[in-house]
């Protein structure tokens, strides 16, 4: 099976990445087990015992879940059916949460499980957007990302995960995909049992039996207008929504809420770092055409960009659920994550901007000529790297499936606009022309517009339900 799957992996173009993942990081030895779950909706009675056993085992706070049970209704009376599906981390072989995790908090354990290490997590929430299954949440108690970790601490002492132990109908089975003698793994292969969102190509190791396709497809089963069977459904932005359509084959009667990962602060960061990048790009362009007014080309924009970068840093750190750990990005950072890479880009940009400002003050255009290429490149990167980050969010179709160039162009465009507004108003003020005294107001209006625009952009992608 391994061989077959590896072949399929290569065919799908993700094999190499996957193999790489398995040979770096925590997985030092060759895997002899590759654990997953079979969730048998044919046996599941929707009793929520797994949910509560998990809460108990891990003392999961109220409002967040490592595992939960969806109720989905199909058909019309009297042919109505209700389907129960257990939802949780899929322990993907190609886990986007591991790829995006900036500090290696999420890692693959030697038994194939996607595990996490609280002591490394900075609470950046990127994993929540990377996961196509709504499997992760930020613990309100620790401020770190948690999810199903297969009860590794129980496996270690020879016990089944608590959801498996408690299940009255044996609907949850531990599967070892690497064990040729594992009957359940064989069943998964022969019956070609489905996984959730296979098109996200995460190679989930959680399979479903006895369910209906709509139960696995969040877009096929909106929550009805009058809510859930026995839980509140407020319809607020915190709850992913599906537009009601006449054609929807199914209705969600029970599910749990998932918080939006990135909100106002992240939208603000997109604007401020765009301003930093944009201001410097305009200044660089001005120097290119020979303008050497040092205040307008060097110190002015440099100071503005540094202020914008500082605000960017503040916003980014403030958005972390463990802000005091922000420096982990540099001490424990993984460059494979665009959260980490982005932090370095911003740092580098800050250095170049500082050099540009200081050097420009003394050396003028000669200095600009030396620094213009690195600065322009770094500014474009500062504006555009978020495109890579968004693309790394494999859970968000509206980001991940959009062409990189389009995302990058959008970000650079926004930077040019925001930076242009700020730089323009700087130059205008520099000119000390009364006629231009409205320019800071106009610049502020542009920034606010950009922020609202980015906020909506972020919200739109995150509002689509994943589970």
């Amino acid at each position: 099976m391994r061989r077959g799957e590896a072949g399929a992996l290569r065919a799908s173009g993700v094999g190499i990445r996957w193999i790489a993942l398995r040979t770096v990081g925590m997985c030092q030895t060759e895997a002899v087990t590759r654990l997953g779950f079979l969730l048998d909706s044919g046996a599941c009675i929707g009793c929520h015992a797994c949910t509560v056993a998990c809460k108990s085992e891990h003392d999961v706070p109220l409002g967040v879940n490592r595992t939960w049970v969806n109720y989905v209704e199909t058909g019309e009376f009297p042919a109505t059916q209700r389907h129960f599906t257990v939802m949780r981390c899929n322990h993907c072989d190609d886990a986007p949460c591991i790829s995006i995790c900036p500090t290696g908090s999420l890692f693959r354990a030697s038994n194939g499980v996607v595990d996490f290490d609280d002591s490394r997590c900075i609470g950046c929430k990127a994993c929540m957007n990377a996961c196509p299954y709504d499997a992760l949440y930020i613990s309100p108690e620790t401020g770190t990302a948690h999810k199903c970790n297969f009860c590794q601490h129980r496996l270690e002492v020879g016990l089944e995960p608590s959801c498996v132990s408690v299940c009255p109908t044996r609907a949850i089975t531990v599967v070892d995909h690497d064990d040729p003698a594992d009957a359940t793994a064989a069943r998964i292969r022969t019956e070609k049992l489905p996984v959730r969102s296979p098109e996200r190509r995460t190679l989930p190791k959680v399979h479903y039996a006895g369910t209906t396709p709509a139960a696995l497809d969040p877009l096929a089963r909106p929550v009805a207008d009058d809510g859930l069977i026995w839980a509140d459904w407020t319809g607020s932005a915190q709850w992913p929504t599906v537009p009601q359509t006449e054609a929807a084959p199914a209705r969600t009667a029970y599910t749990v809420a998932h918080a939006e990962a990135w909100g106002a602060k992240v939208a603000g960061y997109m604007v401020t770092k765009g301003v930093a990048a944009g201001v410097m790009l305009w200044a660089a362009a001005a120097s290119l055409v020979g303008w050497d007014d040092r205040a307008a080309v060097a110190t002015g924009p440099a100071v503005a960009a540094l202020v914008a970068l500082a605000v960017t840093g503040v916003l980014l750190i403030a958005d972390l659920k463990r802000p005091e750990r922000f420096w982990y990005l540099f001490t424990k950072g993984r460059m494979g994550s665009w959260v980490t890479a982005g932090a370095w880009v911003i740092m580098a940009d800050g250095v170049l901007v500082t050099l540009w400002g200081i050097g420009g003050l003394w050396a003028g255009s000669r200095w600009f000529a030396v620094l213009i290429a690195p600065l322009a490149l770094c500014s474009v990167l500062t504006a555009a790297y978020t495109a890579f980050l968004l693309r790394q969010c494999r859970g968000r179709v509206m980001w991940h499936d959009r062409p990189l160039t389009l995302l990058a162009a959008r970000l650079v465009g926004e930077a040019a606009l925001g930076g242009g507004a700020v730089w323009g108003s700087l130059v205008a003020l520099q000119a000390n022309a009364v006629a231009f005294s409205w320019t800071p107001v106009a610049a502020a209006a542009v920034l606010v517009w950009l922020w609202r625009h980015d906020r909506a952009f972020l919200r739109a992608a995150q509002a689509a339900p994943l589970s």
Partner: protein
Amino acid sequence: MSTAESAPSPSGPGGSGPGGSGTVAGLRSAPPHSRWHDWTELDAASWPNRVERKYTLVPTTCFNCEAACGLVAYIDQETDKVVRFEGNPEHPASRGRNCAKGPATINQVHDTERILYPLRRTGERGAGGWERISWDEALSDISSRIRAAIVEGRRDEIMYHVGRAGEDGYTERVLTAWGIDGHNSHTNVCSSSARVGYATWMGHDRPSSDFANAEVIFLISSHLEAGHYFNPHAQRIIEAQQRGATVICVDPRLSNTGAKADHWLPAWPGTEPVLLLCLAHLLLEADTWDRAFVHRWTNWETYLAKTRPDLPPTFESAERALRDAYAEYTPERASELCGVDADQLREIAAVIGKSPGRFASHTWRAAGAGNLGGWQTARCLFLLNVLTGSVGTVGGTTGAGWHKMKPKPPLQPPPVGHWNEMSWPREYPLSHHEMSILLPHFLREGRGKLDTYFTRVYNPVWTNPDGFSWLEALSDPERVGCHVALTPTWSETAWFADYVLPMGVGSERHDLASFETHAGQWLGFRQPVMRRYAELQGREITSETRTHEFNPGEVWEENEFWIDLSWKIDPDGSLGIRRWFESPSRPNQPISVDEYYESIFAAEVPGLADDAAAAGQTPLEFMRDRGAYAVRGDAYGHHERTVSPSALAGTVLGDDAVYRPHRGAVSPTAPLPPLGDGSVAVEVAGAARHGFPTPSRKLELYSTTLADWGWPEHATPGWIPSHVHWQRLDLAGNERILVPTFRIPTLIHTRSANAKWLAEISHRHPLWIHPSDAEALGIEVGGLVRVNTRIGHFVISAWRTEGIRPGVVAASHHMGRWRLDDAAAAGRSDSGRSGGGRSDLVAADLVESARVRGRGPADRPRSSEKAVSGS
């Protein structure tokens, strides 16, 4: 025959049970029993750092429904605290697994709003004023009231009213020792009707269904999410379905059970007997019924003689009489009356006919509780068991009395010589259990009054249909002199008590429990886990040691409460009460809980003493270490067993082939037999056989009990149109049938409300309504509905679903708590709190608050209150 039930392996739980998943690296579902006293695990929160934690594992019994599943408490040896509960793999019924309510027990233990100290009312009853008192004060006052009532011949004024006892026999023995008929139950709003249907067939008032081995599972219940006995039944029903059994569920609402069923039959409420008699008709017509069984084990001779005296007294005539009796129940007629598809009924009848002997069925509250004549549902359902010969068979259904075990307590006092007409009014000679629903009405009529009234896991103010009658009765000191609420948590009823005495939750008390969960017999032992933990840690447990020393605050257990109270009622033994509560080994000392259970385990549980000896333990230690015991023995065919000649000695063989004791040989003060009328055997096929505990000792196709008490027209399985039969309602107008009786998988009446993880999952209490009804009644999305019934109204939000029959609306009776104290109790699952209460709480306020607080989604209009008349 032997049990086909899969038992836990004696060596340990790993990979036990069918479909076990212990294949991966030999994973176990629970720690091996041999290591329970000292189990090392890794701390979940510290992972991936390996931080070891040492636990002591102590078994006990869940209290969160009737099933009495096994739990194991994990007690941290460092902090001496219970950290969680998991399943008990030693438990024969729950087999190490639980529903959501099992692990949620830890919420109840650590509930921040639980009652920790005895409280006495200050101010008016129901006003919400409380003061903390000592247990001694409480016991002194209550015992002096009871003593005065007994001495003054007012024994009927003492009543113990229990909703869910969670134990078997202990408290009944206490009341018997006091010489009072003071037991009252919740059963009349619950299972009484079904019990009548079963008892008139087989003498046992409950079915024991062998789902695990059945080919056809027929449920007029929601046993995959609720009911007797949710988790043990669900395990076995799904096990059977996975190997090919057909599951049929009759319910107007798409319960989770209906959702899992191969056939969901949403019959109109009250027409279930029609559906069942149609299946009987089809079995008879297709000749797929078990003639030999019906001939051998029913009282067909009586049936024939009473219903068709015109026919010659042969079995062929009985067969003809049966065919004639049910000829009118054609699939077409059933389809018209029940609203289910005629061909689907034919298909189901064919499936049933194909599996003789392997038809397992169950009904409990459901249709029986909600309809006039609902008791016939159980009678008609069991007719299918009889016709298919699925009684006492592998995969069939048998009497609960043969699987449930009720071991004799030590020192059983003699039966009480009179009955309390407040509980057992003469107008209802066939009432199965006390007519408890009428208690407030009898008090209003002045039939009697209560001096001292105990409520225990009983919340009639909220649970019973006419809560305001209870509120009225409990508010009036002339009707109820002193109301003592024994409860771990606040409830609407406890709010109207004089004393609120905190009793332990499931892991803080001793009890015995045994239920007919499957084809097998077992006994479960609930124990206060911290007491056992202390014992294992080396603390000496003496006869002076009390459970409350180990419980939080001053939380007691009832066993010790009743012993102490009885001693205080009769301190010098002059009333003859004290002697039933004396130690067998220490003269003039109260019996200890250890002594009580040791004597039961040593002598009354077959095999237990031997198994304990083999393990090198006393029977009590053995049970404290395992929590449950499976009694060995044949689980099937009890009725076929021959009765030994010695047991027949002193009996007379009557004309009806029944062996009965000599007239005059029975002393009026002798204990009643647990089942039946005292007859011991019936002559069948040339042998004296055990038979059934009915008057004929056979299955009563014609119930002579019903006929003898004045209802000959209902002596055979038949249909009584319900008081809410759909054809009598104005469905074109705004009348609909209200189903107010269903449980959801996560909540259980009053006692689960403070389990935070359960309330997190389920906290909305809407009215299920079909979209077509919502449209016809003009109910807007997110709107409120006012439901008027014959006794009042309530306001509730609507949940439109295709999972309910048009014409029927439903609301669970396990949700929708009242908020008694706005100021203090802010939590949605709270029902009250001590201190700071409003003093003007009256019925009108509660109605008003229901209207005001009816919830719709927050962002939607909630002005659209529409009226529905439930019936």
